């Protein structure tokens, strides 16, 4: 079950090219649009407090 969850998250985040069985029936454009919308909403909501990436200073 965890493996399916993990594959789904990786696919939605753009890390995996092939859709896992759990998401294969849903049109890719619909999933992609939902992820982009959610990501843009989160970025817009939280962007005011941004700080430097930690590893930049290493």
């Amino acid at each position: 079950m965890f493996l399916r969850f993990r594959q789904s998250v990786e696919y939605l985040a753009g890390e995996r090219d092939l859709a896992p069985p759990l998401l294969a029936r849903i049109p890719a454009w619909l999933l992609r649009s939902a992820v982009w919308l959610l990501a843009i909403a989160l970025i817009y909501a939280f962007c005011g407090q941004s700080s430097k990436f930690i590893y930049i200073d290493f």
Partner: protein
Amino acid sequence: MIFNTFAYYLLFLLPAATLYRCSRDRVRPWIIAVFGCGFFLYFAYSMAGVWGALCLGIFLWESITSRLYKPGSRWCLLGLVQSLLLLGFFKYWNFFTGLLFWHHANPVRWQSAFLPLGISFFTFEFYHYAWDRRAGRTEQGTLAEYLAFILFFPTMVAGPIKRYQDFLPKLRAKPRDWSSDWEFGLTRILTGLAKKFAIADLMTAWTNHLNAHDIPFADRRMLLVWLFAYGVKIYADFSAYSDIAIGSARLFGIGVPENFDWPYGRRNIQRFWQCWHISLTRWLMDYVYIPLGGSRVAPVRIYINIMLVMLVSGLWHGAGLNFLIWGLWHGLLLALHRGWRKWRGEPSTRPLPVFASRVVTLIAVNAGWAFFCMDLHTVTLFYRRLLAV
């Protein structure tokens, strides 16, 4: 800031990736090299002024000397030494001279010291190229290809640490699947940015309390919350950075190594390090652990090698005693794990021991973050307060 600035996307990533895909084979490496120079000058100047920007000379010098590296050649040793000397000078001068003159003020302290943008990462790529050229494990490539390798700006500042022999075929291949690369690349960038803004930066509110002023007055349970919040923050922050770097590289049609593979919740510390900052772990294995003899030496030497590798890892993360102790802590955990496996054999697959080992690993890793995010004085205060000593 870099990946969370408009300048990165509008001035560098989108124009460079578009031009790269529309250009002829011979021109493509030069596009990466030219945009890489512009990227370095722009961000190094904004972070460290003129001297920071002038460090572009390090790349140009390295690219010239790299033409001398041949299999078995002594010039490769010069390449190894010069890359380490540069890192040592910029990153560790004040640390080591401070240790040398620990009992009074450091007379040779470099007052206006600065760190060239990405030096810890590009040093590893310079070192890898010189080493692998000497061993005959990689071809030389053209000057433009080498410049494209070291100046590939999506990975220049904080990795993932690339290998020339992996990068070269991707650079030489004509990028074809434009729509798929941009669809997945942009998705990766957006999820990375969302992770950074919504998780990593949100955790900052708690982790900011990990300082000498707040710790003495905090509830002990809150200390644990702050420490675990730092564990979440550093994972979300660095994995978000890697997501954006990998997504950015994909816009060019170039695949770069993954850096994280769900590290938290792994069964043991060895698995954790196979899944955390993967490109660094592999670099340390190939260029420190194996040259030291790896696991093919006497048992005691193996444990010493493990400790040395983690000591290097700690020192690489920062020029401070707290980073050294962080490295030693992980070395100790890895050595203990190895000893335990030798003694008890293969681990149990029953649910309870599996769950317990995941929890113990998670706690051990997070206990170590205290040394990573606080100086030695503050971390002593933290643990004395937490353990009520």
